[in-house]
């Protein structure tokens, strides 16, 4: 099992975020984490990274209890945009992903440079890896960050809303890249998304976080009117448009539903 979460709960600042979450993800699966704003999707990733402690239950990644600094896990946090005036090369950022946690001045190392180059090529960023990160477009920055997350030889990628604030073309390109990495390099992908539609064709499994609960299953099992109504505790309807897109609508706009607020 790539991820095994058992009856896990998380509280932040004394507030329960979600509880009794159980979840299993097999190696090589592509998992989408969905849910309204503030429901605890990012917290779920952070719990699996060992950054946020569990208040109950257990979390294992590749059979071992979660811990920070696991080389097998790569992470892309939410909404990272580098300032236009940040004068650090994209390639140095990828290199930091490899050995940024070590003390001392890095010595020139052919193997490490080769590894960084290989990852940059994998994400198709070779043309602009030598330019300052602040000068790159949102899509280009996202590719560099994926390379950074993978460079330790990670077998799992945790991405927090990687498609947000990208235009439609870049959304398509980045989700295709993630899919390729998942299928060709057998990397398990956990992707937090606002909108499932750009990734719906290749999602193996959906994790839905809402109302203090975490629900897991195949997309067609989870994204259904009855299931989501039960999860939200309020009437919700799932509609399918003529081109196959899924739309979740409710009396209460799901986006404004926030269990911590109520």
């Amino acid at each position, binding site marked *: 099992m790539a991820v095994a979460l058992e009856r896990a709960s998380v509280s932040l600042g004394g507030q329960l975020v979600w509880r009794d979450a159980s979840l299993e993800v097999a190696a090589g699966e592509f998992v989408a984490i969905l849910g309204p704003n503030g429901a605890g999707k990012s917290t779920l990733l*952070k719990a699996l*990274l*060992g*950054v946020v402690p569990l208040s109950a239950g257990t979390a294992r990644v590749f059979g071992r209890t979660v*811990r*920070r*600094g696991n080389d097998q*896990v790569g*992470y*892309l*946090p939410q909404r*990272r945009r*580098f300032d236009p005036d*940040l*004068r*650090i*090369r994209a390639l*140095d*950022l990828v290199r*930091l*992903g490899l*050995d*940024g*946690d*070590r*003390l*001392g*001045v*890095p010595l020139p190392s052919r193997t490490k440079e080769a590894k960084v180059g290989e990852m940059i090529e994998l994400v198709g960023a070779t043309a602009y890896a030598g*330019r*300052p990160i602040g*000068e790159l477009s949102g899509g280009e920055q996202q590719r560099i960050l994926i390379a*950074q*997350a993978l460079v330790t030889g990670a077998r799992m990628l945790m991405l927090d809303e990687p498609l947000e604030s990208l235009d439609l073309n870049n959304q398509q390109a980045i989700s295709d890249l993630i899919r390729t990495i998942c299928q060709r390099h057998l990397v398990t992908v956990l992707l937090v998304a606002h909108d499932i539609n750009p990734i719906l064709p290749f999602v193996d499994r959906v994790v839905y976080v809402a109302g203090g609960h975490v629900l897991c299953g195949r997309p067609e099992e989870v994204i259904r009117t009855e299931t989501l109504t039960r999860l939200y505790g309020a009437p919700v309807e799932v509609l399918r448009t003529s081109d196959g897109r899924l739309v979740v609508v409710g009396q209460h706009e799901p986006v404004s539903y926030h269990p911590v607020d109520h």
Partner: protein
Amino acid sequence: MSIGQMLALDFMRNAFVTGGCIALAAGLVGYFVVLRNEVFTSDALGHVAFTGSLGGLLAGLNLLAGVFGSCIAVALAIGTFGGRGRGRDVAIGTIFAWVLGIGVLFLSVYTSAQSGATGSVGISVLFGSILGLQPIQVVVGSIIGIATCAVTLLVARPLLFVSLDPDVALARGVPTRALTALFLVLVAVTVAESVQAVGALLIFGLMVTPAAVAQNLSARPWLGMALSALIAFAAVWIGLVLSFYISYPASFFITALAFAAYLVSQLGRRVLPAASR
């Protein structure tokens, strides 16, 4: 006078050695100050250094004890309360104007208490006294300068990681809080050091300008750090030589040289194509 005669003078040798060590530390730490956009933390600490050093003198302590003590204490306070010394914040501006006001009080009390003192001690704190270093300042300044460089280089890589990418660094097991606190202490120590070289008011000239030049010249972090330290070092040494021959204040030459380098690098960035960087 020849270079040999210049170097035969004790106060010039002291200035070259101590000023050089201070410059290397200021350039290196300054690179991170600019990268992390904490320029105004160093400004605020400069104000504290002025008041702290005079307060130290007034309390009968050594000037060094007052500078280092006050800077480190305030840096740790900034770290604890989590605020960044941003210049635009009215509250912070008012507080640090008041801190300077207290410094003026100390200066006035100290000057009138010392019979025959002309108040030049305040000038040397504000504008530096690199040519009039006392023996203890030479020893302490050089050792602390080198030690600051060593510690900064030791933690430079994780510090770079945390500065650029705090969330990922945390997930990768970097102790972000401890590093941030350590960095603030390094800034405090460097400010206290720089006060002796260029003075509390001109700290930017040694800590910010060389780093800004370096970042204009290169987007490679390690090269940038080396350049920043070297530019600060060159500004101090050339400034000392000019000051010796032309006998205008050394701090003026140091800040003017650094500023000239900044203007040139800024022009160069506009003129040269992106590929050559």
